[in-house]
C-alpha cells in the first residue's frame, strides 16, 4: 500500500529524456492550443495590409511571370508541351508550400524563444501549427491554379488531368511531412550554432533548382555531368517524385515517375520525421540556455 502512494507522481522532471520518449498524448491534450495558434496566424497574417490575402495570389503570379520571361523566354527551356503559366504555376504552388513550411519551421526555437522561455507546452505544437496554417495559403494558391487551368481548358489546350490526380492529398501530406522533418532537424541544430541558419537558407534556395520546377524532369534524362547520371540524382531528391507526380496527374506533363520512387519519397519522409522528433525532443529540454 505504501509503495503505491510513493509512486503516485504525475509529473517527473529529469535532466534528460530517454531517446524515444515522445509524448504524443501530451500533444493531443494541447490540440486546442494548436487550433488557436492556427487561428491566430490566419487572423494576424495580413492585418493592416491594403491588399490582404490577395498577396497570396500576387506572389505566385509574379513568380510565374518571371519564370516565363527568364526560363521560358530567354533560356528557352521546354515545358513538356504544357502552356507555360500552367506548368510553372503547378510547380511554384507546391514548392512555395514546401519552402514556406521549411523556412518557418526551421526557425521554431529562435522565433518563439519569448514564449518558450515563459511557459511550457509541447514545443512540437509550433512546427505542426506552422505546417497546418500554411495550408490555407496553399489552398488559395491552388485555387488560382485551378482558375488558370479552367481558362486554358476553355480556350483549348493539351493539358488534361488523369487518375493520378487522386494522389493529391497524399502528395500534400508528403510535402508537409518532408518540410516538418527537415525543419525540426534544422531548428534543433540552429539553437546553438546560428551559422547553420545562414547555411540552410542558402541551401533551400539552391534546392529549388535541384527540383523540377522551372524545367521538366524529362529534360534531364540522359544528361551526365561529371560522370554522374543527373536523372537518377534528381530523383533521389525526395521532393522530386512528389512534384513530378502532381504535374503528371494534374497536367499530364511528362510521364509517371513510378510507384517505387514515390514510395521512396514517402519512406524518406517517415524516417526524417522520426529522426527530427528524436533530435527535437533532446534539444527542447535545454534550448533556453543556449538560444
Amino acid at each position: 500500500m505504501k509503495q503505491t502512494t510513493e509512486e503516485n507522481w504525475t509529473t517527473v522532471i529529469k535532466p534528460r529524456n530517454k531517446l524515444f520518449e515522445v509524448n504524443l498524448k501530451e500533444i493531443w491534450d494541447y490540440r486546442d492550443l494548436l487550433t488557436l495558434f492556427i487561428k491566430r496566424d490566419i487572423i494576424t497574417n495580413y492585418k493592416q495590409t491594403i491588399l490582404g490575402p490577395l498577396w497570396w495570389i500576387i506572389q505566385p503570379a509574379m513568380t510565374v511571370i518571371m519564370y516565363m520571361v527568364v526560363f521560358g523566354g530567354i533560356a528557352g527551356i521546354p515545358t513538356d508541351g504544357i502552356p507555360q503559366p500552367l506548368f510553372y504555376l503547378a510547380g511554384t504552388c507546391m514548392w512555395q508550400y514546401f519552402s514556406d513550411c521549411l523556412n518557418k519551421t526551421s526557425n521554431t526555437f529562435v522565433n518563439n524563444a519569448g514564449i518558450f522561455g515563459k511557459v511550457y507546452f509541447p514545443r512540437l505544437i509550433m512546427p505542426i501549427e506552422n505546417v497546418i496554417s500554411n495550408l490555407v495559403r496553399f489552398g488559395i494558391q491552388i485555387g488560382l491554379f485551378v482558375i488558370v487551368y479552367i481558362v486554358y481548358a476553355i480556350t483549348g489546350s493539351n493539358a488534361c488531368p488523369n487518375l493520378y490526380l487522386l494522389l493529391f492529398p497524399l502528395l500534400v501530406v508528403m510535402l508537409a511531412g518532408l518540410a516538418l522533418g527537415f525543419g525540426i532537424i534544422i531548428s534543433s541544430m540552429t539553437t546553438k550554432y546560428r551559422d547553420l541558419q545562414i547555411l540552410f537558407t542558402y541551401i533551400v534556395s539552391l534546392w529549388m533548382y535541384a527540383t523540377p520546377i522551372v524545367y521538366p524532369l524529362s529534360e534531364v534524362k540522359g544528361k551526365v555531368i561529371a560522370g554522374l547520371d543527373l536523372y537518377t540524382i534528381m530523383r533521389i531528391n525526395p521532393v522530386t517524385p512528389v512534384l513530378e507526380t502532381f504535374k503528371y496527374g494534374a497536367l499530364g506533363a511528362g510521364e509517371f515517375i513510378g510507384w517505387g520512387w514515390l514510395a521512396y519519397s514517402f519512406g524518406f519522409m517517415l524516417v526524417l520525421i522520426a529522426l527530427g522528433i528524436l533530435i527535437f525532443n533532446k534539444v527542447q529540454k535545454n534550448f533556453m540556455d543556449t538560444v
Partner: protein
Amino acid sequence: MSTAIEFNNISKLYRLGLVSTGTLSHDLKRWWTMNIKGEEDPYLKIGSVNDRSKAADSEYVWALKDIDFKVEQGDVVGIIGKNGAGKSTLLKILSKITAPTTGTIKAKGRIGSLLEVGTGFHGEMTGRENIYLNGAILGMTKQEIAKKLDEIIDFSGCELYIDTPVKRYSSGMTVRLGFAVAAFLDPEILVVDEVLAVGDAEFQKKAIGKMQDVSRGEGRTVLFVSHNMTSVKALCNRGVILQNGMLIDDGEIDSIVTHYLRGDNEVDNYKAGNEPLVSKKGFELLEIGVRKKGGNYIDVIRMDHELELVMRYRLTEAKDPFWITLHMKNEQGNKIFSFTGSGRCYDRHHEAGDYQQICTIPANFLNWGSYAIDFMAFQQPNNIEVLANESDIISFTIANRQVAIGGYMGKEPGDVMPKFDFVEEKLK
C-alpha cells in the same frame, strides 16, 4: 497531508560568457569523454559557486546546487533570496522551461506556471481572442475558457474594450487582462513569479486577494517568488531562502523572513568588536546598534515598533564640550534628517570614562525600507575638532506593519510616514 512536490538534489549548471564562442570545441570534448572514453561529463565537476560579486574561477557556474526539499499539499511556499540567488532558475525548471543538469523533481498533479502575465498576447487580436489564446498557452482547454470567459472579463475590468485589438490597450490594461486569465487557471500546483508587482494599488489588492482565495480556500499548492516581504508574509505559510544557488534555510514563513532580513550582509544594524570601531584623540567608539526597543539586535524591526539607537564609547581623557551628531539616510543615500542629544538631553561636559547613549526613535515614524546612519563625534576646546566621522556606520531595515489580507502591500511614498492626529467632524 501528503507531499505535493519533491525536489531531489536539483542542480543547474550554466556556462558563463558567450555561449557561441568555443561551444563546438567544448561539445566535442564532452562528446569525446562521455561517449568514447565512457567517463563523466568533464565540465560538471568544475563549476564554481554562484556568487556574482566574485570573479568565477571556472567558465561554468552552478546557478543551483543540490536543492533538496519537499512541499506538502496545500502549502504556500515563498521562495526568497537576492537577485541572482537562483529563484527564477528553480521556477523555470519546475515549469519545464529548462531541464535541471542533475536531480529530479516529482510532483502530483498539473503544474501551472505564471512566470509572466499575458504570454503570447498578440497585439492584432482582440481581448477576447487573446483570452482564449493565452488560456490555451497556460494549459486550459477551449471549453474551460469558454466556461470562465465572463468571470475573466469581469475580473480584468476590460469589458468595454474586450473586442478591441490589444495593441490599443494601455500597458496596465494588458497586464490586467493577462492576470485575469491566469487567475482562473486551476492546476493543482501553481508556480508564480513576481507577477503581483504590476498594476496599480487597486489591482494589486485584487490580485493578492485572488491568490489568497486560491491558496487558502481551494487548498492548492503554491510556489511564490517575490522580493516584497510583506506580500510573502501575507500569502505564504512556509518559506525557503536561496543564496548563491544553495538552499540555506527552510521553515515557517515568519522565521524565514526574519532570517532573510537579518542574514542579509548588506543590512548590518549592530557593530562592536575587540578593537574600538573608531579611536582618535582619547575617543573610542566601542559599540553601536539599532534595535527594536527592549529587543535583541536580531529581531525584525517593524514600522510600528519603537526603535532605539544604542551607542557605547570610552573617553580616556576629560572633554569639555563633547557631543555626538547623527545623520539618517534613506536607501538612495539622501540625508533625511540629522539628530543630536547634546545640550538638551545630556550635558556636554564629560569626565573620562565609559558612557552609553540611547536615542529613542518613535514608532510609526520611519516608513518601511532600508536606512543608514552616519556617525559623528566632536569636541571643542577652542575650535571644533572632529573626533569621528563615519559614513554608513550601521544600516538597518524596517519592515512593514502587519497588513490585513487584501490590504495595500506596496510602499507609500516618502521616508517618514508619521501617524498624525486627524479629527474629522461632520459639519452639515
